[in-house]
């Protein structure tokens, strides 16, 4: 059946148009019988308007509790070559940098052992190798490690950390995102490969508050670069932007500053840095004229996640400013303290953000040994339901 091409009239309609076509990609690999059957099954889904995959069983490679997502067809009789169609999550190099050489190595391995179809990349950041069978998992894994690659995370484990390109290419990187990501990934190999948490735990590192890796929305721990001193201003360059007329300095920059701490008199740009909340907007608007300060570090935020099950969360501040310096001991210590607490007291399938809301941020901080500070809240509590402990310690002079 595999050397006979399946009819895919519905999918074929997605080959036309200016945007790169995933159907063309599938067809490029259709010489692989798994992919040929995948095309067939997908066409079938387009006809039936339902998915044709079943829950995955527990599959994986020896000694690893994750990194592979098992997948089985519910129409295997018709599409036997993709009856089993597991994915392997391969930990990407920090910043998603490659050379042609190393990419070809991955392609060769996947040509030999899998469907030839990938995701570059998965939403968490891994290289996703889409579709292979249980027996192929271990050989694939061994060839990958030989080529220098390892599995990423899945299940109730630390997940593959990811980061923006940071210092490699961006003038705004306020700490070395790629170095930190690589170091944390290496340090926490055990936590990634042998799930021992109540649920998944993701780390994402962005070099500045633009947050190009969406860490504040998609990571249990979000590490976002920032600075403490003054924005550096080149007044000539500011005037050049204004002269060029690409934007209206008052309406588009000054009035858009979230704290309105900028002042423009037509000649000189003033910034009240004590009220600047490091949002990046003015710098984004004038990259040649404004630069972040030089006293740099990061904000650590915790707990973002998708809606299941208590509703989506954004991460919230637990360390307003931290210098990011090798060997990153303080970040590792706070991470470990959080994991210890959450691993012991978190419920099954309770993300750390939900856990904190359940036990209370105040009590969470106390237990991981951090001092509360007003930067952690949008505002102090509005309800009077205070769990007073010993009033003598609350009394104020």
């Amino acid at each position: 059946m595999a050397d006979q091409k399946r009819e895919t009239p519905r999918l074929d309609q997605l080959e036309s148009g200016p945007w790169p076509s995933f159907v063309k990609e599938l067809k490029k690999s259709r010489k692989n019988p798994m992919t040929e059957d995948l095309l067939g099954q997908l066409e079938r889904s387009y006809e039936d308007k339902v998915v044709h995959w079943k829950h995955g069983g527990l599959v994986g490679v020896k000694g690893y509790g994750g990194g592979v997502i098992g997948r089985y067809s519910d129409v295997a009789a018709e599409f036997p070559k993709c009856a089993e169609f597991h994915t392997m999550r391969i930990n990407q190099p920090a910043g998603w940098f490659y050379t042609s050489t190393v990419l070809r190595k991955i392609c060769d391995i996947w040509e030999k052992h899998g469907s030839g179809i990938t995701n570059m990349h998965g939403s968490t950041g891994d290289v996703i190798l889409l579709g292979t069978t249980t027996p192929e998992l271990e050989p694939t894994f061994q060839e990958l490690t030989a080529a220098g690659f390892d599995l990423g995370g899945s299940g109730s484990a630390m997940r593959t950390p990811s980061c923006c390109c940071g210092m490699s290419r961006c003038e705004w990187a306020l700490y070395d995102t790629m170095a930190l990501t690589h170091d944390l990934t290496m340090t926490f190999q055990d936590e990634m490969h042998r799930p021992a948490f109540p649920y998944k735990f993701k780390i994402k590192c962005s070099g500045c508050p633009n947050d190009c890796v969406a860490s504040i929305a998609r990571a249990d721990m979000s590490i976002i670069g920032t600075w403490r001193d003054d924005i550096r201003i080149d007044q000539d360059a500011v005037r050049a932007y204004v002269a060029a007329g690409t934007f209206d300095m008052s309406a588009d920059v000054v009035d858009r500053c979230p704290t309105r701490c900028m002042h423009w008199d037509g000649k000189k740009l003033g910034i009240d840095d004590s009220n600047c909340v490091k949002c990046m907007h003015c710098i984004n608007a004038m990259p040649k004229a404004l630069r972040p300060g030089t006293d740099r570090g990061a904000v650590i935020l915790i707990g973002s996640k998708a809606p299941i099950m208590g509703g989506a969360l954004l991460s919230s501040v637990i360390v307003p400013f931290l210098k990011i310096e090798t060997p990153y001991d303080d970040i590792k210590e706070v991470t470990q303290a959080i994991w210890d607490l959450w691993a012991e007291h978190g419920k099954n399938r309770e993300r750390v953000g939900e856990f904190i809301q359940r036990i209370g941020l105040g009590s969470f901080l106390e237990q991981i040994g951090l001092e509360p500070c007003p930067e952690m809240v949008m505002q102090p509590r509005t309800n009077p339901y205070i769990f007073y402990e010993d009033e003598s310690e609350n009394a104020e002079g």
Partner: protein
Amino acid sequence: MAVETKERRTDIGPPHYEQFLPPVIKKNYGKWKYHEIVKPGVLLTVAESGDKLYSVRAATPRLMSIESIRLFADIADEFCGGFLRFTSRNNVEFLLTDESKIDPLIARLKKEGYPVGGMGPSITNIVHTQGWVHCHSAASDASGVVKALMDELFPHFEKMDLPGKLRIAFACCLNMCGAVHCSDIAILGVHTRLPVVSHAKLGSMCEIPTTVASCPTGAIRPATVDGKPSVEVIAEQCMFCSNCFTVCPAISLSDAEKDGCSIWVGGKVSNARQEPMFSKLAIPYLPNNPPRWPEVVAAVKNLVEVYAKHARKFERMGEWIGRVGWPKFFELTGIPFTKYHIDDFTHAGESFKRSAHLRQKKGE
């Protein structure tokens, strides 16, 4: 409808207000043009017709003897044809048309101990509650704290020297009978010790299911004590709200040494500029120290002075804090930030800071 005897009048409702309106109001009702605060406590309202109405606002302690009400009646007769009203914040207003009577009226009121002021950008009367004068639930007195506070804040009542209106409220327990949850500054009486249950009485005095259901945090569960049906309180889950006490007289939370006051800031009610806001916790606990609650008075005074110094024109307390940020508020007021400030009730997560928008403190 209730059964009632023939002659007994019921459900007559309040008297119609119209009979109490002075002629100038009746004539210009709904036809006013503009107003102006001509001096502290004196509001001039000008009608389309050109008619002028002066309202002179005097402080009251709210808790009034009938002797003083009669005094107000006499003053009203003398200065304004017997017409007066009270305000939504328990001040009294004398309604005049004769401009020449304003100063004598002010002098008279002052002499009798009811000073004039509380208008415009000032501190007006403190909305408050019963306290030890009448309520069983009070964790602090109300009238006493208010008196001590206003004695100290008095210059801001008589002058209009603040950036904007500054509304203070006091409530003696978490039921918050008044404006505590939405005030520029609020003082709230709090219990901080666990409910004490009279197991002997509970069975006969309270419904156990109602008592259990009354607890917002589920800290109460049915229990049999000394063979009698009663309830027990799970210590770690109790946050001293007193709601169990409200529904069950066999429970008590009062504690002479551990009851006290918390201080809240930054709420508002008006829609002017920013939308209405709740008050936020500033100081979790200060002791009850009658008769003049010096710790509470000092704390409130500090808040008022910091606000007065730093806020811009028209800016209410909460708007000012919103502009400079909470870290700055704690820095300027010198109030320590503790874990109590971090919400941990139902919607707690909504108050966490979920962005990197931070005013960073410059490094050393």
